[in-house]
């Protein structure tokens, strides 16, 4: 059935019902989907469904007791939750904005004519390849207020460096800065691809009209880079809102609770053995990220179409 070539069909088959034709026109049988569907169901749908169930139980791993929405009530009355949410948003938006701005500038720089361009491209991309935990631990050592290299160097030029990771005011932003350092390569790469893809004709036409470099950038490069910007914002915002590994490696949410984000609050609950409660937290995180990212994605996609 599947190997039938439509043009070879005898006229009779025109009479078949639409449903039959749909089956006949497909190039491959439906069960080709099976492996993907099974994997998706077993590894995604079942755990997701289970987590919705367990989020409504008090669960010790040995036994679970259904308690309705009590975990969600408990989760929202968690004293650290408000700060965790605020920190999550600060972290998500700061890293995302910094990656857009710096990524765009570096993208422009590295697509222009300059000495050592390829070398610099690899330098910028290199941190992406390193493990996040490794980066976190390395920076934790470098940023140690008393024995770290960074404050050591600052000390040589007479500046008393701050406690990057131990000052409650700075800890979160320091981690965000390291996150930007690490994730910038991807943003730059996406922007470089976007910039290279802009047809030269636009610039030639603008040149005829006497446009300045600034006008070129403002009216040609920037609008045509909208798809790249969308991708960078979405990727880094999702990553930022869910971010956990770097924060855990560098501060464990500390000092105290001052750099706790939602993910680290949830992880601590899990560590403490509150399995039901932390599952409820994950359901909340899932919903919050979806609520932010889905409308944003729709909005950006519409703007791209409107262009």
């Amino acid at each position, binding site marked *: 059935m599947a190997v039938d070539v439509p043009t070879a069909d005898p006229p009779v088959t025109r009479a078949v019902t639409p449903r039959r034709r749909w089956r006949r026109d497909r190039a491959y049988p439906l069960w080709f989907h099976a492996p993907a569907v099974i994997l998706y169901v077993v590894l995604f749908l079942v755990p997701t469904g289970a987590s919705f169930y367990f989020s409504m139980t008090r669960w010790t791993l*040995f036994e679970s007791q259904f308690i309705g929405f009590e975990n969600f009530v*408990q989760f929202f009355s968690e004293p650290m939750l408000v700060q965790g949410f605020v920190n999550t948003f600060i972290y998500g938006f700061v890293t995302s904005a910094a990656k857009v701005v710096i990524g765009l500038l570096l993208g422009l720089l590295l697509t222009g004519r300059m000495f050592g361009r390829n070398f610099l491209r690899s330098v910028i991309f290199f941190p992406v390849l390193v493990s996040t935990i490794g980066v976190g631990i390395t920076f934790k050592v470098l940023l140690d207020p008393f024995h770290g290299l960074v404050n050591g160097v600052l000390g040589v030029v007479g500046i008393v460096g701050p*406690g990057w990771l131990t000052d409650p005011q700075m800890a979160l932003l320091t981690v965000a800065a390291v996150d930007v350092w690490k994730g910038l390569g991807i943003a730059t790469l996406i922007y470089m691809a976007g910039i290279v893809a802009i047809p030269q004709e636009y610039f030639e036409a603008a040149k005829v009209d006497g446009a300045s470099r600034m006008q070129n950038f403002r009216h040609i490069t920037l609008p045509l880079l909208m798809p790249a910007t969308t991708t960078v914002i979405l990727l880094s915002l999702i990553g930022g809102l869910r971010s956990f590994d770097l924060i855990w490696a560098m501060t464990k949410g500390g000092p*105290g609770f001052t750099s706790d984000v939602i993910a680290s609050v949830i992880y601590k609950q*899990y560590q*403490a053995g509150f399995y039901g409660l932390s599952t409820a937290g994950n359901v909340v995180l899932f919903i919050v990220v979806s609520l932010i990212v889905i409308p944003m994605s729709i909005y950006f996609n519409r703007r791209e179409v409107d262009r």
Partner: protein
Amino acid sequence: MRRRQLLAMAGAGALVPLASACSVGSIGGGSGDKTAVRMLVPVSGDGQTVYHEALAKAFMDANPDIQVNIETQPGGTEGDNLTKTKLSTGEMPEVFAYNSGSLLQALSPDTQLVDLSGEAWAKDLSKPFVATVSTANGMYGAPTGTTMGGGILYNRKVYEELGLTIPTTWEQFRDNNHKIKSAGKTAIIQTFGTDWTAQLFVLADFGNVMAQDPQWATEYTANKRKYAEQPALQGFLNQEQTAKDGFYNKDAASAQYDAGVKMLANGDGVHYPMHSGPLAALQQNYPDQVNDVGIFAIPAQDAKNTRLTLWLPGAFYIPKSATGEKLEAAKKLVAFSQSQQGCQILLEHGTVTGPFANQTCQLPSDVPTMVTDVDKYTSQDMALPALEFVSPVKGPGLPNITVEVGRGIRGGLEGAKLYDEDVKKQAQQLGLPGW
């Protein structure tokens, strides 16, 4: 079939061919019929299985028909999760070492562990220890180490140099701190970079709490006592006050536990709120300074309430998934650890931090000062177990909260209130009445 058997072998992690020959039977003719048992040891650093290896070796020499294989897993909260997972999937090795007290209660011992109250050695255990490994329905653990004292570790050399005496009231302690500070040394070492170390002003004050209110632990479990009220609040206030007095080392915010032990050993820092756990590190890294370090109880406001707080040893447990021959072998191994020979192995290869929880074992005469200090308190009945051994209620947020109080991010009373909120989850998770 053969293939499946091989897979099963690999899955069970049976590394020793002899052991698998016994369970699989059809493959090869193993030399002798050995029963293999696994022993799980949580480790957080190098060399922590030395005692267990020596114990296993001596046991196998005495019981040639039993093979003991040691497995390790991380300690701390990560280990707690692994332990629960292994128990709930039935993959827990036949003998495993784990904490006693509140952490054990979280394992649902009645449904998961083998009752050991009928074993011959059980009658030799000290009462406070038995309470930490028991539920209403059974006794589940055999002690794996010695008791630790919790209070203030201090450098005796500096005390001599400055002519200080051991304080028994909080005011005296504060005076000493001022004197040490004006002598240009760090009065109190704090290592907030390793966050659990921040808790000791609160946790090791618990002996003093119980001295003032012997019902405190029971009432606390029933949700009738709070940390935000005296006498328990004092621990948080002490943390706040010592921070405000500027007694801490200037790198307290980032310093790690190892650095704290180093400061204490070389006398740069004089007081370290801690339990006798660092003794192992002292013996290994600063053997010449071991006897420079002693311990005293955190002074209460009133000298008559000053008590040392005790950390009771962890224990060996046997999961219900161990049955038949393996169960018998596991019981034999646990019994061996409690024998006279087992004590000797612990003395030789483990770190002795205080008195034994098993009366079969006796401390030798040439123990470090810190151990003699702890022994002094216990033999005079001036020591009481820490809260985690007398109540299952322990919140996960205490390290962070005490870091905040010690850093001045949060006040002492505020921190205590926050901790009262924090423990609610634990109590509800355990299904305790009154929460």
